[in-house]
């Protein structure tokens, strides 16, 4: 057996019997922060994926699992990046029982195709992750990606009943099962969801489906100040209506979704609810009454426009980057009661730093996305990011630097500081990936 060094210098060749693709175009598709993988490999089954990983581990090659690259840039820039492992050839449905509300699919299935597939039976996964239709099931799980709709039934974590995981030992491990309630054994799947491709490769997932509401209605209104937004948010959460999603936006970048071409004063609030005709009538009158009590006018939004707006809200990170490639995208998660206070502080920090800022905040997950577009290249980027992170932590939350120009990303921490549970996380990584070949160094604390 030749040494790893010789193999690396000789190129990736094939991995686990699967030919690696090395043309520029394929590699560029999976570039991260300007770093291209040396090869891309496309396994077609769980077993092939496991063979690829085993072979990479044996040769000490760094592998980053991926599919459609809608969130691939999140995380620390890769130090080593030998191969992108794309699951694009793995998009089958293995098991589907609509009357049980359960489905098993391969991880490479696109989220849009998935929703379309189950939508024919009036079902859905009540999620609107970044990347939208182009995201993959595996990617959504590996990043626990969820947009504002998570307020309804939680995140992918809460909808995953079981999964199969390809390991660097070349095995395919099963976690969980195919039934909606199951406490047999340790819940290994939980640790894979949101592990950002650093432990194993999720090759198959069994998910819990939900019935789609008969009708959905989106409304919008303006909250002139953050105090007004807070008041509206509190009133909605205290009311008996359970919205499908609710978000509020501000924009100085002309990139965020909005109602009109003109810049509204204050914050645009978007809220969607679902139900039968009779239920919707009640909900709209409730929302209207809340808006009226605050002196705001509520406008219903026709469905096509609503769809487009919600897509852009969910995929804010990519929408902003398309309009402003030099934008910095930050995502803060914090307790709901502190959202507006944090946002106020954040906008004053970015105002002082001389950036134009767009923000998308949503309930459920209590997320505040900030998109910073520098007016000139001289802005104090590092200091601003540090100040914003300190503010998020002061308000009891955390902040991720999701996206930034490559040179800035190398100077700031993508994930922030680790805490007293980090040693356990390190041991978890060691157990799954002893040689550290899966997305090495990209997750928090260099995991």
């Amino acid at each position, binding site marked *: 057996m030749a040494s790893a060094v010789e193999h690396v210098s000789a190129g990736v060749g094939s991995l686990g019997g699967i030919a690696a693709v090395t043309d520029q175009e394929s590699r560029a598709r999976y570039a991260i922060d300007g770093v291209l993988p040396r090869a891309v490999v496309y396994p077609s089954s769980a077993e092939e994926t496991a063979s690829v990983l085993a072979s990479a581990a044996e040769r000490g090659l760094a592998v980053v699992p991926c599919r459609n690259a809608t969130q691939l840039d999140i995380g620390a820039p890769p130090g080593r990046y030998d191969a992108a492992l794309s699951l694009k050839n793995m998009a089958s449905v293995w098991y589907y*029982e609509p*009357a*049980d509300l*359960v489905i098993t699919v391969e991880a490479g299935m696109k989220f849009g195709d998935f929703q379309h597939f189950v939508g024919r039976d*009036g079902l859905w996964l009540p999620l609107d992750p970044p990347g939208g239709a182009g995201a993959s099931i595996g990617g959504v799980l590996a990043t*626990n990606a969820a947009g504002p709709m998570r307020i309804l039934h*939680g*995140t992918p974590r*809460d909808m995953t009943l079981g999964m199969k995981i390809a390991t660097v030992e070349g*095995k395919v491990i*099963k*976690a969980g*099962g*195919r*039934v*909606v*309630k*199951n*406490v*047999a*054994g*340790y*819940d*290994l799947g*939980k*640790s894979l*969801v*949101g*592990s950002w491709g650093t432990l194993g490769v999720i090759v198959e997932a069994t998910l819990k489906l939900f*019935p789609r509401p008969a009708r959905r209605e989106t409304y919008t209104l303006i909250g002139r100040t953050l105090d007004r937004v807070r008041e509206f948010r509190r009133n909605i959460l205290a009311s*008996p*209506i359970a919205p499908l999603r609710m978000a509020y936006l501000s924009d100085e970048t002309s990139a965020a979704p909005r109602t009109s071409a003109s810049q509204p004063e204050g914050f645009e609030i978007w809220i969607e609810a679902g*139900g*039968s005709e*009779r*239920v919707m*009538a*009640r*909900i709209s009158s409730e929302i209207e009454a809340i808006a009226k009590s605050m002196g705001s006018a509520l406008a219903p939004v026709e469905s096509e426009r609503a769809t487009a707006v919600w897509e852009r809200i969910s995929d804010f990170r990519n929408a902003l980057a398309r309009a402003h490639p030099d934008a910095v995208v930050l995502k803060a*998660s914090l*307790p*709901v009661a502190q959202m507006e206070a944090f946002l106020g502080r954040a906008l004053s920090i970015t105002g002082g730093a001389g950036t134009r800022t767009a923000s998308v905040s949503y309930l459920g*997950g*209590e997320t505040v996305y900030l998109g910073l577009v520098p007016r000139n290249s001289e802005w104090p980027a590092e200091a601003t990011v540090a100040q914003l992170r300190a503010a998020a932590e002061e308000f*009891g*939350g*955390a902040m*991720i630097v999701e996206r930034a120009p490559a040179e800035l990303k190398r100077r700031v921490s993508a994930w922030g500081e680790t*805490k*007293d549970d980090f040693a*356990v*996380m390190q*041991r*978890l*990584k060691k*157990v799954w990936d002893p040689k550290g070949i899966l997305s090495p160094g990209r*997750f*928090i*604390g260099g*995991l």
Partner: protein
Amino acid sequence: MRASAHIRELIAIAGTDGVLWNPEELMLYEYDALSAARPPDAVVFPRTTAQVAGIVKLARRKKIPLVPRGAGTGLSGGAVVTEGGIVLSLVRMKQIIEVDPENQRARVQPGVVNLDLSAAVAKHGLYYVPDPSSQRACTLGGNVAENSGGPHTLAYGVTTNHVLGLEVVLASGEVIHTGAKFWGRPGYDLTGLMVGSEGMLGIVTEITVRLARKPEAVKTLLAIYDQARDATRTVAALTARGITAAALEMMDGFTLRAVEEATHAGYPMDSAAVLLIEVEGLREAAEEQAEQVQAVCMENHARAVRLAGNNDERELLWKGRKNAFGALGRISPNFYVQDGVIPRTRLPEMLDSMERIGRKHGIAIGNIFHAGDGNLHPLLMYDARKPAERESVAKAAAEIMAECVALGGSITGEHGVGIEKSELMPLIFSEDDLEMQKKMLQVFGAGEALNPGKVFPSGKMCGELRVQMGGAG
């Protein structure tokens, strides 16, 4: 037993009133709700995280296994001692540390009783969702260890979906904090790994939970059937029609007659099965759903559907359900509660299998299902004084489990594996799967220090599938 050096050290940590070591007192801790195993060497009742850490370090130094325990209401032998050791009882850590109504969060110690938390936050219009039948007694720490369910977890998820963060004392004595008050702290989901790990990975000393807002309206219906099969068909039909009930319970005739005699909840004595169905939400939504439920029940040949007219009637219906185990105790000297899961569309055939297995072994089986999520609780009647009956029950239970797995299900939906089902684990997991699960003991640095002898098969069973009913039954 003399106050050994170990006991004196435990007393130094937890105080004289914080340690039990007289044999007659220890006998109480021989049991959980599954059955008896053997008495522990001592029971210690810490009041603080620091005391827990001290006890854990002591046990590690002396190489004594620790068995964490809440109220002891578990049904899989998870809180009993298998090979000697100290029971670490968390019932004196029962403070609700913080209630944060606006964020809908509470931070509690593990000894807080499940229902006490809901009672404490009721004034804010909030409640804690998972509601095991033992919720008047069981502790939240025990719920976390077992990832407990309950009738109302159908719509909103089980314990793991409601726990955001934990304080954990590791087997090293080190204290860590997993998760956060908010969802989405970056890092591996150690909270998710801890929940349901049956007290083997660490000792939970603080729990951050999410609280839910009480719905505006609740409608409770009782559908009565002359054929049990029609009740199971109704369950599949409701799911297929997209009707999401908040709870959907089934009891067969055998069980409901016992319940009715004990609680007078108004269940009809001559029916073959009843469904207890609850819908909730906005007033309009609950009303509409109640009408739809009624229609689906009638389409599936319900004899009648009754709607609880007020809260008292509702409580009475639920009282019958939640006290069912107790009621069955009146008609049989002993019974063994099983816990299996199947895809909910397979309920009709599972019911047939249950009958077949009961007949084959000559035992009466009562059926209580969390039907909405396919979680079965067959109750196997026997007399513990008759070893042959005990043996038949154990065999029947193993067959029921095998049937659940054959239908695509699992060996436990909410009671956990414990000592009861560890030998059944190979039914659903390969050696590789189990090996990876075992490695979690390494990850948390637990080794065999905490709750040893649970969850994983001993490998001594030579292929025979057996449930472990414990000592006396």
